[in-house]
């Protein structure tokens, strides 16, 4: 059988999904202390709405959004606000955070649904959007764009399709796979809600063919609906929005444009699940499934974790690091960020903690001159010439880099993966992007 995929570029790194794909989601015990960043999304940070010493319940708002592109932040455990602090996020930025602690003798007081609205699909789009916004839902694939904004396209951009992104094309990661396998109905219901909000009659779920069990489950859950579950050929970066839309609908998002320019909204599997829980039970986004995997961790797992839990505790729950561990990444190894500090908390967009062994992890190794082999050109899914971007950036010719479509690069890393001269192309591109205006 031949499955669809995007035509241009793409690579096939070793998948390594087998490490954790068969491990069921395990609910991690509530931590004693959580550190909840007030900026867990793209857009304006939240303003703290609690004070030190204040008692908070799990699910209570502790940070209110400032501005349209923002999302509230909630306490993930019941306890007392003990401090405001700043934490170093893997992207290299210090962000303000609220510390919530539970007294040692105090039992878990987990979040409980106050309601069960079985008729959620009958609510008005604005009502549902309100619930999503109040729940603080952001894109959980890693981009963390506030979901209520993404599903509020301007009138002149009519939407006719919603796609749930179950590609999970990053090597190692298995969280979306497990969510589709274990909560298929929630994901499908979440998609139905998104379709209702956007007034769309056609929904899609795109899954790569390396997750046949998830495909079966999702097909079952989607039976009798307007939702098509599509099996896709394995190819990185299929999970990138533009590639996924091309793979499923053969539509090409214009350069510099957004999915809504071709009438599509894409949401991640985890996000769809969160949308369902928010619209039915009023559940805020205070926990998520995180794959803790890689060759450098003793027992890889998929953990359901409270937002704000330090990464070190996830690693402990998975048996700790092997002596060979060399690099710990937030997200996948192609686009994720290396941790500086294992006290960094899990946030809404943390899809995985990948522990690479020293032998597999790249560092700041010596690199060669570009030999112009053109592998990067063939690998680029955006049809760019990464070698030229790399060379221009190296020489400081940033305006020339822009002329070679610098800002169409979404930093998937395919070029850098294939480069035989081991050039840090993505790094050079990131640098160039900071030196010229789009």
């Amino acid at each position, binding site marked *: 059988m031949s499955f669809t995929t995007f035509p241009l570029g793409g690579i096939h790194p070793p998948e390594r999904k087998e490490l954790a794909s068969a491990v069921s989601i395990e609910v991690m015990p509530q931590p004693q202390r959580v550190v909840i960043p007030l900026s867990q999304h793209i857009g304006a940070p939240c303003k703290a709405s609690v004070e030190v010493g204040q008692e908070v319940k799990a699910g209570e708002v502790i940070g209110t959004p400032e501005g349209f592109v923002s999302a509230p932040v909630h306490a993930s455990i019941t306890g007392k606000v003990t401090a405001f602090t700043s934490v170093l996020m893997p992207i290299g930025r210090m962000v303000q955070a609220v510390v919530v602690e539970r007294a040692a003798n105090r039992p878990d007081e987990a979040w409980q649904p106050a309601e069960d609205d079985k008729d959620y699909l009958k609510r008005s789009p604005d009502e549902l959007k309100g619930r999503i916004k109040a729940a603080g839902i952001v894109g959980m694939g890693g981009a963390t764009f506030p979901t209520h904004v993404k599903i509020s396209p301007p009138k002149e951009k009519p939407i006719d399709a919603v796609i749930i992104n179950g590609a999970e094309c990053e090597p190692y990661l298995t969280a979306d796979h497990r969510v589709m396998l274990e909560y298929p109905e929630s994901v499908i219901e979440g998609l139905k809600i998104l379709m209702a909000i956007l007034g769309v009659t056609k929904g899609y779920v795109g899954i790569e063919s390396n997750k046949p069990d998830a495909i079966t489950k999702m097909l079952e859950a989607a039976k009798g609906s307007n939702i098509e579950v599509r099996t896709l050929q394995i190819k990185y970066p299929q999970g990138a929005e533009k590639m996924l839309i091309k793979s499923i609908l053969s539509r090409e*998002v214009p350069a510099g444009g957004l999915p809504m320019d071709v009438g599509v909204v894409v949401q991640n599997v985890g996000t769809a699940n969160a949308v369902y829980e928010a619209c039915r039970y009023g559940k805020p986004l205070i926990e998520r499934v995180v794959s803790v995997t890689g060759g450098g961790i003793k027992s890889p797992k998929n953990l359901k974790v409270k937002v704000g839990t330090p990464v070190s505790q996830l690693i402990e729950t998975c048996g700790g690091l092997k002596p060979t561990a060399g*690099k710990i990444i937030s997200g996948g190894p192609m686009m994720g960020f290396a941790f500086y500090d294992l006290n960094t908390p899990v946030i809404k967009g943390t899809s995985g903690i990948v522990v690479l062994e020293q032998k597999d*992890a790249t560092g700041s190794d010596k690199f060669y001159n570009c030999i112009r*082999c053109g592998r990067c*050109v063939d690998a680029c*899914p955006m049809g760019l010439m990464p070698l030229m971007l790399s060379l221009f950036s190296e020489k400081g010719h940033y305006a020339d880099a822009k002329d070679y479509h610098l800002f169409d690069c979404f930093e998937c890393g395919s070029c*850098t993966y294939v480069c035989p001269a081991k050039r840090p192309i993505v790094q050079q591109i990131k640098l160039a992007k900071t030196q010229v205006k789009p």
Partner: protein
Amino acid sequence: MEAGKENKLIVSVSPHIKSSESVDKIMWTVTATLLPTFVMGVYYFGPKAVIVTLLCIIGSLLSEYFVQKLAGKDISLKDGSAVLTGLLLGMNMPSTLPFYIPLLSSFVAVAITKQLFGGLGYNVFNPALMGRAFALITWPRAMTTWAQPIANFTGMDAKTTATPLGILKEQGLDKLLEVFGSKMHLYSELLLGHRAGSLGETSVIAILIGAAFLLLRGYITLRIPAAFLASVAAGAWVFGGKQGIFTGDPLVHVLSGGLMLGAFYMATDYVTCPTTKKGQMLFGAGCGLLTILIRLKAGYPEGVMFSILIMNCFTPLIDRGFRTEVFGAKKKA
């Protein structure tokens, strides 16, 4: 949480994994795929073929070493590129040369053409071909004195003779057929390599075996070689005949001279060919047309070397003019 005591964690920018491909691996692999060609060269031209090739490789390594030493750069002999240049240069030489020609030519190839332009990746021209061009212009007689190919391991001086293209140029196709007996015999001798020529260019089969490996591994694509061979064949068919247009014999032209070696190993040199699909096809076609122009109309019987060197000049221009099409840049219908 510690990852061992001295075992600090690495922090760097994504992607955090890379393929196992490397410059060294590519250079040494290409070098290895030339082995069948080299062996056939030795088979036909004897121990002298080994000596010429070794002199080219030694000259290349010495040139690379001394220029890098003088310039205070890291010595990069182990990346294999100097060995590859030397080997390719050797494959492009007749077996009958005095020792100083291979040595001086490899100096021109590696020291001048490559290192003085900035080293690996920065050279404008194919180093091995520049070395050969220098030799051909400086010692025209020595560089066109071809040994008669015989399975000859005595090291005795063999008879010299003309190359098939030389006969074709001077005396025409009929003479060539007379020398080789029949058309089928001519084709089969061209394929096997039983003919006069540079020591690595005569055995088409050996070259194709190595090239097939490179194609399967994805080290080269067919874009340049196919366009190169197709345009030579087309040009030979249209303009190569005595009885007017469309009467030429494309196969003789495709199988003779240095075309196969040039198309698969020289024109595909990463550094000096364009990087985009369209650009590469144009580059290949340009090489082919110039080759046939030289073969049919210019003073030299063979034009592969000059055509590639001329097209090398156009590579930066082609890369500018034939950029890739950005995803989403298509005009709306």
